[in-house]
């Protein structure tokens, strides 16, 4: 590349002169010389000077060389300096540049510098040759000096850089060390044999050892009984280099006997060749968090009152046991419901009821010793005991007997001795055959079968009776359709005026004509309707029917009719307008209707809640307090209620069936009657079955009576035939 340009220049400027003016003397000539020199040298330099600048730079050098040619005595020293300057200042460091530098001097210096008379042409040429030798020597020396200096500078720089990197590495190590040392997370590094090579303070503190002690440990010894099943398999895979990370929750035994729970992440550290070298363990202490989690889980799966497992945990366990392939072949279930618990709650209050439930839970639990037995409170007064792999039906019935016996021993509560009766439904069978819901349904039906048979007993599930059984679930589901299909009907029982034995009114009683189970009493479906809310439309239907019915009886004045009102109806916002609408539609006076409300439904009711009843009472509807005396009666409260009648519960009149009558019951009824009359309330007695009872009650001042002694409930037709005309 450059040599071609140079030779062209060379040819171009060989004799005669480049600009045709011929050789010139002095300054002007040397300027031209510098121009030729610059053009030839420029391509061989690495200078960043422009061509013009290089020419300016070379001109003084040319002048010095020109002077040297003419100076006495001759000295080649300026040549040496020129050679050095070319290297150090024009950056002509390439040896390639030297022939170009010297070639131009050889050809043109003498020509353009001019030859004074004192120096002959031959002498000038000789001096020019010696100057070139000196330039070459100066150039070589400068290149050598410069090369050595630059190499030395570079070596120093490399060394300095190495040192800087090492210092930075050291600083980095120090920072890493600080991270390791001061981390709140536990960090341990073990070799591939499991020997712990390094452990930070956090790890040592978690384990309750010193860091020094930690370094003597082998991680392979840290087996704990509660280790997850796959922890050590994962670890073997890591140790074999087949796995790079794993993350588990792992417990460790602390020297003080407590357990440390950690979130453990183990990573494999490989060397440059990819061979496993170290295991890095990062541990986070989750002991506290785990405890909290366990507590929350416990709270979610246990009954707050009794501390027993709740329905959630029971359902989980049942589900697990019934899932095929879980190692359990048979199961047994005792489904238990306390008989008459509602009475306890109503009469003794919820606090006592709760204490009773706690005591029942303890009794039930005392009957089971095997850890595979689960005692759970399902809800309300229902409990369940679930057994894994019972020996046979006998073991389950044996447990049921033990449960009943445990409850039969009186429980001391609030100064009272209560003997608890319960009904138990037993389901026993092979796991994997029934779904959990089927098992529960079967247990529920069977438990009610035990209750129907009088309670305080157990029954075994059997498919035949189950097919006939009426379980609450299917009844509940059928209720809405039953209302639509007119499956409900009313019967009427007369209320007898005691003064003259004439009929004073009738209580309407609802029945269900079930297509499969036949005639069902209100105790079977009213609680279900109350629970689902169907009681509201059903209650309205009863009211309409009863009010319409009373118009058909008796020519002139309609017979007064009593209709039961459930707690849910009582709180329904449409109670008052609905009742008025029904009465108006039938054209019946409000005084022909008596609404019966249970005493327990009014316990604790505030003024707002009583307002609808007051409104009804104000327009003339009679209000009767049903089942009076069974609840937690607050006699002082009676004055605040809009009641016009007390219906004394049959339990008070039972003692009067005997002859002579129980004097306590006599006194009691007498007291209530006198109290009621003092408050301006009429008294109706229920459950009158004998003549002497009727006589006693009349003598005690009761106003009206109701019971089999007078009449059983009957259809409207029968009622009309036997009673309505008599009114």
């Amino acid at each position, binding site marked *: 590349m450059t040599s071609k340009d140079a030779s062209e220049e060379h040819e171009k400027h060989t004799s005669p002169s480049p600009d045709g003016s011929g050789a010139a003397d002095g300054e002007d000539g040397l300027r031209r010389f510098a121009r030729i020199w610059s053009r030839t040298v420029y391509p061989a330099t690495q200078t960043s000077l422009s061509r013009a600048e290089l020419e300016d730079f070379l001109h003084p050098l040319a002048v010095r060389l020109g002077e040297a040619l003419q100076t006495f005595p001759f000295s080649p020293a300026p040549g040496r300096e020129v050679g050095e300057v070319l290297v150090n200042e024009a950056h002509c460091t390439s040896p390639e540049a030297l022939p170009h530098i010297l070639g131009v001097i050889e050809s043109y210096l003498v020509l353009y510098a001019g030859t004074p008379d004192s120096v002959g042409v031959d002498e000038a040429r000789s001096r020019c040759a010696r100057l070139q030798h000196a330039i070459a020597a100066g150039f070589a020396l400068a290149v050598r000096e410069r*090369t050595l200096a630059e190499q030395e500078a570079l070596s120093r720089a*490399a060394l300095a850089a190495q040192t800087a990197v090492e210092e930075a590495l050291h600083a980095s190590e120090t920072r890493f060390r600080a991270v390791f040392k001061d981390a709140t997370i536990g960090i341990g590094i073990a070799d591939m044999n499991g020997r712990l090579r390094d452990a930070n303070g956090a790890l040592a503190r978690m384990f309750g050892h010193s860091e020094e002690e930690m370094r003597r440990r082998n991680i392979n010894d840290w087996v704990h009984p509660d280790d997850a099943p796959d922890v050590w398999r994962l670890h073997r895979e890591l140790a074999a280099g087949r796995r790079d990370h794993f993350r588990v929750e792992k417990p460790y035994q602390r020297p003080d006997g407590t357990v440390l729970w950690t979130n453990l992440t183990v990573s494999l550290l490989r060397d440059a060749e990819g061979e496993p070298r170290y295991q890095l363990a990062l541990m986070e202490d989750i002991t506290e968090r785990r405890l909290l989690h366990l507590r929350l889980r416990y709270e979610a799966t246990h009954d707050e009152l009794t501390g027993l497992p709740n329905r959630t945990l029971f359902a989980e366990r049942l589900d697990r046991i019934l899932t095929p392939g879980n190692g359990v072949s048979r199961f047994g279930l005792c489904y238990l419901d306390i008989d008459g618990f509602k009475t306890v709650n109503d009469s003794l209050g919820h606090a006592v009821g709760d204490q009773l439930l706690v005591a029942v839970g303890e009794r039930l639990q005392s009957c089971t010793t095997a850890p595979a037995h689960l005692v759970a409170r399902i809800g309300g007064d229902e409990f369940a005991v679930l057994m894994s792999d019972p020996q046979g039906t006998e073991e389950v019935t044996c447990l049921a007997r033990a449960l009943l016996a445990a409850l039969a021993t009186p429980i001391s509560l609030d100064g009272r001795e209560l003997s608890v009766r319960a009904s138990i439904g037993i389901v026993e069978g092979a796991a994997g055959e029934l779904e959990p819901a089927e098992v529960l349904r079967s247990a529920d039906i069977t438990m009610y079968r035990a209750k129907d048979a009088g309670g305080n007993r157990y029954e075994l599930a059997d498919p035949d009776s189950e097919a006939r059984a009426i379980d609450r679930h299917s009844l509940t589901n059928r209720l809405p359709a039953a209302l639509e299909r007119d499956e409900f009907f009313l019967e009427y029982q007369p209320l007898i005026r005691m003064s003259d034995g004439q009929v004073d009114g009738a209580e309407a009683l609802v029945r269900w004509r079930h297509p499969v189970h036949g005639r069902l009493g209100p105790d079977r479906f009213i609680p279900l309707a109350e629970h689902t809310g169907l009681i509201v439309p059903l209650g309205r239907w009863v009211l309409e029917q009863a009010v319409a019915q009373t118009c058909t009886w008796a020519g002139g004045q309609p017979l007064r009719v009593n209709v039961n009102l459930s707690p849910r109806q009582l709180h329904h916002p449409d109670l008052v307008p609905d009742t008025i609408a029904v009465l108006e539609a039938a054209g019946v006076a409000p005084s022909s209707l008596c609404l019966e409300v249970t005493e327990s439904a009014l316990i604790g009711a505030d003024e707002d809640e009583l307002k609808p009843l007051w409104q009804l009472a104000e327009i003339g509807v009679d209000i009767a307090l049903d089942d009076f005396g069974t609840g937690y009666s607050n006699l002082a409260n009676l004055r605040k209620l809009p009641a016009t009648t007390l219906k004394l519960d049959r339990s008070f009149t039972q003692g009067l069936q005997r002859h002579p009558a129980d004097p306590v019951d006599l006194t009691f009824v007498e007291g209530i009657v006198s109290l009621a009359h003092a408050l301006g309330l009429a008294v109706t007695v229920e459950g009158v079955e004998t003549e002497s009872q009727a006589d006693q009650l009349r003598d005690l001042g009761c106003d009206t009576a109701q019971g089999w002694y007078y009449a059983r409930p009957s259809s409207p037709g029968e009622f009309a035939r036997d009673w309505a005309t008599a009114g």
Partner: protein
Amino acid sequence: MERPAWAPQGIDLNVPSVSRMYDYYLGGSHNFEVDRETARQAIRAWPGLPKIMQANRAFMRRAIRFAVQEGITQFLDIGSGIPTFGNVHEVAHALDRSARVVYVDNDPVAVAHSRAVLEGDQRVAMVSADFRSPQDVLGSPETENLLDLDRPVVLMLVALLHFIEDRDEPRKCVAELARRLAPGSLLVLSHGSAEGGPPRDGGAALQEVYSAASAPLVIRSKAEIAQFFEEFEMVDPGLVALPRWRPDSPTEYEDPVVFSGFAGVGRKAGLAE
């Protein structure tokens, strides 16, 4: 476990360094045999390479002169390499004694050597940082001490970006640097290219040589190079072959090889102080 970014890089003197190879092209001796051997291979793959480097140095010199004439005397030279001769501060100080220059390089040897050479000059500083981390460049104490970023700065990316691969997002880095500069700042940029010079193989052989060096060589087209000026308005004569950027003598004598590679100067828009 990966080392964090702030852990220092080690030095391997057996790996050819692009800055020491550059020094070799310019006739310097700040290089080792591995650098020289690779540089010789590079010259065989792309004859005339040293002339391109020389043209590049000449462009840089003219651009500095232009900047000083424009009244901008703060220079941020990223990828400054091994100081040899005709360095930015020398050129700038010849024009304005008060000019301030911050050199930036990621080669520890270049940094060490620069610090040795520059020691004692309060107007010049050397930053050990990487172009790919603009925050490190601008946030270094040297930059903060020496440059007033509220006033225009000459950002010099001379023969640097052809060592930055696309995956390192050089355009984004340039934009990030540009964002921090005051309006009126200049971008001085030159970049290797296979366009414009004598017919080549597109630079494949040269890239092959550089694949063994401390940084790979990325040869870009003129259009791609022009995109680096997105945040700037081109100063006349635009993006041109190295010798054609405001030449101070006729270019007809130039070796044709120096026309491969482009240079340009851009000005950041907005109101300069």
